[in-house]
C-alpha cells in the first residue's frame, strides 16, 4: 500500500491533544447581546447620514445655466449619456478588455435617446403652451440637416448664455425653435414638472430613476455637490458617503486601482479594474489550491501568534 506524502499546506494530522469545555450556545448568546449593544451605542453616538436627494428642480433653480447647457448637450449629442454607448445607446463602442468589448456585445438594452427622452417627450407633456406646441411641430417636421443647423447655431451662441428674470438669455437668431425649447425645458425643470415627467414615462407606478439620474450626472451640479461633501477624490467616490462616516470601506481595493497607473490614465479603466478584481477574487477563492499562495501562512509564521498558547504549552511539555 502506498502512503501519501504529508503536505503541510494541505493536510493536517489528527488532533491527539486535549479538549476543554465549550458552551457554544452561551457563547453565541453573549456575542449577539454584545454586538447588539455595541450597535445601539454606535447608532446613538454617531447616527447615520441622510442628505436629501437632489432633484432636477433644485438643480435648475440653483444652477439654471448649468441645467440649460446640459440640456443643450443632450440635444446636440455631446453629453456623457449621448456618447456613452451600451447599455444606453450606440454613441460609442464602450470600453474594451483587450479584444473584448463586453458592453457592446450586450448592446443597448436600456435604450436612452437623449433628444427624445430628455427634451422632446417631456416638453410634449406640457399643456396649454401654443408657442411651444408650434416649436415642437417645427422641430418634428424639419429635416435632420435643418435640426443640426439650428442646434449647431445655438451651440455656437451658448458661450454667452446666461439666465435672468426666469429666462434663459442667449442671442441665437438662426437656431429655429431651439431657444424656446431650451428655455421652456428650463422653466419646466424649475417648476418641478420635469422630475415627474422623467420618472412617469413608464406609467403611473415606477421605481426606476435611470433617466433623471443620467440627466443629473451629465450636469456639473451633482459633481459639485459631491465635491463639497468631499466625496470625489477622483474615483474613491464610490466607497464614500456624506459626513464623517466609514462608508463602504471594504471597497478600498476596488477603488484603489483607479488611483494608480495604468488604470488612472486608461480610457478602459472600469473594465480593466473589474477584470483585475475578478482575477483577484478567483485567486482568493482558490487559495487552498494555489501553490505558493497557500504556503504564505506557514512561511510567515503569523499562526504562532494566533496559537500562542498552544505552542507555549508544547514548548513547556
Amino acid at each position, binding site marked *: 500500500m502506498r502512503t501519501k506524502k504529508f503536505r503541510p499546506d494541505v493536510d493536517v494530522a489528527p488532533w491527539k491533544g486535549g479538549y476543554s469545555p465549550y458552551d457554544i450556545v452561551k457563547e453565541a448568546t453573549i456575542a449577539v447581546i454584545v*454586538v447588539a449593544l455595541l450597535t445601539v451605542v454606535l447608532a446613538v453616538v454617531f447616527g447615520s447620514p441622510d442628505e436629501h436627494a437632489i432633484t432636477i428642480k433644485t438643480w435648475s433653480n440653483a444652477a439654471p445655466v448649468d441645467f440649460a447647457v446640459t440640456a443643450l448637450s443632450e440635444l446636440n449629442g455631446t453629453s456623457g449619456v449621448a456618447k456613452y454607448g451600451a447599455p444606453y445607446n450606440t454613441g460609442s463602442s464602450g470600453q474594451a478588455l483587450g479584444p473584448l468589448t463586453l458592453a457592446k456585445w450586450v448592446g443597448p438594452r436600456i435604450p436612452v435617446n437623449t433628444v427624445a427622452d430628455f427634451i422632446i417627450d417631456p416638453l410634449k407633456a406640457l399643456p396649454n403652451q401654443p408657442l411651444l406646441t408650434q416649436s415642437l411641430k417645427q422641430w418634428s417636421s424639419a429635416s435632420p440637416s435643418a435640426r443640426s443647423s439650428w442646434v449647431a447655431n445655438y451651440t455656437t451662441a451658448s458661450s454667452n448664455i446666461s439666465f435672468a428674470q426666469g429666462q434663459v438669455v442667449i442671442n441665437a437668431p438662426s437656431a429655429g425653435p431651439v431657444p424656446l425649447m431650451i428655455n421652456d425645458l428650463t422653466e419646466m425643470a424649475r417648476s418641478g414638472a420635469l422630475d415627474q415627467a422623467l420618472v412617469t414615462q413608464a406609467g403611473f407606478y415606477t421605481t426606476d430613476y435611470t433617466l433623471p439620474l443620467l440627466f443629473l450626472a451629465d450636469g456639473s451640479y451633482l459633481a459639485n455637490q459631491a465635491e463639497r461633501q468631499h466625496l470625489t477624490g477622483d474615483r474613491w467616490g464610490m466607497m464614500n458617503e456624506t459626513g464623517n462616516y466609514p462608508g463602504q470601506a471594504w471597497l478600498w481595493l476596488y477603488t484603489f486601482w483607479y488611483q494608480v497607473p495604468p488604470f488612472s490614465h486608461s480610457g478602459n479603466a472600469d473594465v480593466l479594474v473589474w477584470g483585475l478584481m475578478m482575477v483577484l477574487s478567483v485567486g482568493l477563492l482558490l487559495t487552498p489550491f494555489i501553490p505558493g499562495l497557500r504556503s504564505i501562512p506557514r512561511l510567515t509564521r503569523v499562526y504562532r501568534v494566533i496559537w500562542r498558547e498552544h505552542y507555549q504549552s508544547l514548548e513547556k511539555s
Partner: protein
Amino acid sequence: MSYSEIERQWTTRLRRRFVHLLPPEKLLPDTQPTYVSSWIYVFGVTTLSALMVVIASGCLLAIRGPQWWHTSSVGHFVNSLHLWSVEIFFFAMVVHLWGKYFMAAWRGGRAMTWMTGVVTFLVSIATAFTGYVSQSNFDSQWISTQAKDGINATGAGAYFNVLNMGQMLMWHIVLLPLVAVLLTALHVLLVRVKGVVPPFEEHVEVNA
C-alpha cells in the same frame, strides 16, 4: 408498511445521511480542542451576531417601507442601527477572513469551508452595495452614478441597472440576503462537520 419499505424512504435516507455527517454532538459541541484558544476565534461568532442584527434592523426598516426612515426620527435611528451593524459585520468578517488565511484554515479537507466563506464575503459586498444605492438620498444618487460605469463596462449593467432603485432594493432585501444567509448556514455547517483547523505541526520539530 414494512420495515424495509421505511428504510428505503428518501426521508429516512436523508435523515441517516445528515445525522451521520453531523451528529448532534458535532452540531452543538460541548467541548473543543484546547488549541481553540485565541481572540481571533471571536470574530467568526461576531460576524454571525452582526449578521443577525443586520437582518433584524433591516426587517424593522421594511415594516414601514423604504421612505419611512427619511421622515421619522425612529426610522432614522433604525437606519443607524442597520448602518452600524453592517460596519461591525464587515469589520469582523474581514478580521475573520485574514485570521483564517494565516491559520491556513483550508487544511485537512476544509477547502469548501474556505470557499463558501469567500463567496459569502463577495455576496455580502454586493448586498451592502445594493443597500447603498437604494437609500433614495444624495448618497445613493452619487454612489449609483459613480458605480454604473464599472458595471456597465462589463456588460452586466444591461441586466443589473444600479440606477433602477426598485431593482436594487429588491436585490438588497430579497435575492442577495437569501444567498448570503444560505451560504452562511452552509459555511457554519461545514465548520461543524469538519471542526476547527488544528495548528501547524511544529511540535514535531520542538520534540526532536
